[in-house]
């Protein structure tokens, strides 16, 4: 594990990329880390590209800038690959995680020559199978924890269960679906290069 891990999230307004970034900061805090989770704000509206960030460290985090050379990038919507430079500054010893239904051969040419690891996840399939609704951020969060190795997976699942149990105290049926989504995403995320 690195002493500082920096993660950048790309999504579209309404898909939960910001929520995923804040949830990751939250669960990393539960695992004993120093954290910083923040969105980049502008004139956000449903469907517009948004960016959010995480810093996770064993040391105090003082810097307050955006992240330009992330260790990991998550793309919650693959249509962004055509319009946003998602691999900008991404470290070659890091990785990119993309939510897509498409095969690797269609995605890889869109990554502007990024030579690091690429992971694909059909987060839509995972959330439809477990939650019955399109909330791709929950599976993407689990997959990001797995590929970034910012915490042990069993610690992540335990802390997520605690916080989801609190969040959905009055909707236990949603709790089960979310936990299944996390576990299924951990199985489904595939390294394609």
């Amino acid at each position, binding site marked *: 594990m690195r002493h500082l891990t920096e993660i950048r999230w790309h999504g579209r307004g309404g898909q939960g990329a910001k929520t995923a970034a804040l949830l990751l900061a939250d669960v990393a805090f539960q695992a004993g880390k120093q954290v*910083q989770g923040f*969105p980049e704000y502008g004139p956000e509206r449903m469907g517009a590209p948004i960016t959010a960030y995480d810093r996770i460290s064993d040391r105090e985090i003082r810097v*307050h800038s955006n992240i330009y050379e992330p260790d990991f990038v998550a793309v919650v919507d693959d249509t962004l690959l055509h319009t946003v430079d998602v691999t900008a500054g991404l470290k070659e010893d890091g990785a990119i995680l993309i939510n897509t239904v498409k095969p690797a051969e269609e995605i890889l040419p869109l990554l502007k020559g990024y030579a690091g690891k690429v992971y694909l996840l059909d987060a839509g399939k995972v959330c439809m199978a477990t939650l019955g609704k399109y909330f791709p951020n929950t599976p993407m969060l689990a997959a990001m924890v797995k590929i970034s190795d910012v915490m042990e997976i069993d610690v992540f699942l335990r802390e997520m269960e605690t916080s989801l149990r609190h969040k959905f105290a009055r909707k236990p049926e949603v709790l089960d679906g979310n936990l299944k989504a996390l576990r299924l995403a951990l199985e489904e995320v595939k390294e394609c290069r």
Partner: protein
Amino acid sequence: MSTRTRMSGNEAVAHAIKQINPDVMPAFPITPSTEIPQFVATMIANGEIDTEFIPVESEHSAMSAAIGASAAGARAITATSSCGMALMWEVLYVAASSRLPIVMALVNRGLTGPLNINAEHSDSMGARDSGWIQIYAENNQEVYDNFLQAHRIAEHQDVHLPVMICQDGFITSHAVQNITLWDDEPIRRFVGEYEPEHYLLKENETMAVGPYAVAPYCMEAKKAQAEAMKRARKVILDVAEEFEQITGQHYGFFEGYRLEDAEYAVVAIGSVCGTVKDAVDALRERGVKAGLLKIRVFRPFPGQEIGEALKHCRAIAIMDRSESYSSQGGPLGAEVTAALYRAKAAAETVNIMYGLSGRDVRVEDMEQVYEQLRKLADGQVSFAEYPYLGLRDGTNDCLSR
């Protein structure tokens, strides 16, 4: 004694309000401070506090209602940002000159235009002559701690002035970070109950608030207000010392970071100071004697102390996050330069405009500022104009990316 948790700057202010449980909060929503009244309204709905929340129709009304409540004898607070505070303008002065200890959570955001919602200090810097005490924060912990100290300063019998507790919009207001929360009981004892000596609802006492003053009396009132601002200096330090006894957190007028032996110093306010600290550490590892003076209290302005703390430096960059369109630089530049002159400092200075409308500042940008300070001290560069940091069009080349 305390709880380690994580929350955003806005949540941290809301938690401070929960612990203080003020009497009245009139507020009108405006980005990026909107969450604060939202959180407070939720706490009231949940029965966690019994603050009277007044949903007003504008910020002018929010401050007017706070003035009315405070004059009546209540502990009154509000929260706002940017053009919200601009709409309070007239009544900001009424609050201060009526000597009402209102506390405002100001989430700093630029004033239009172009229309923008991001961090800048033009809102509070524009109000720097309104008679409000101004205290700034680097992060969520500091804005929480500052808010807890605000009522003690505002309500002190030697002060009786309103206080604005400032933090950078989005950069700290919406960033979730680690924070230590202090237990309710010691904080409630520390903040105490508000027991004003004179107030409108006091039985058997009549008084007027905000009446017309004729010329033979008006100037004396202003002088008395100015004296109260001077007395606030001691009160701010006394309250900080008492706060430190409870929490272990140290606060003063400003924080010097590796400043004592620094040859090159940056003077700044707010969230950028965390970024500057990382730059200072990186430069120190390379043998460069870099340091930071982070201003916490801007009103009253601790000019003498700042001058003394900086006068040994060879070169100083004063960072402004607010244009004053004076053609000479920003408000912090003017005040710090004056303080250095009075301290008979020999340092070279440059006033740098940065971070307007949320323009991001990286550690590398600040390292470049220190490099310019070295060149300035060595006579290799001079600044006829005040430069902008990180401008897209490359104006002021030496400070562009």
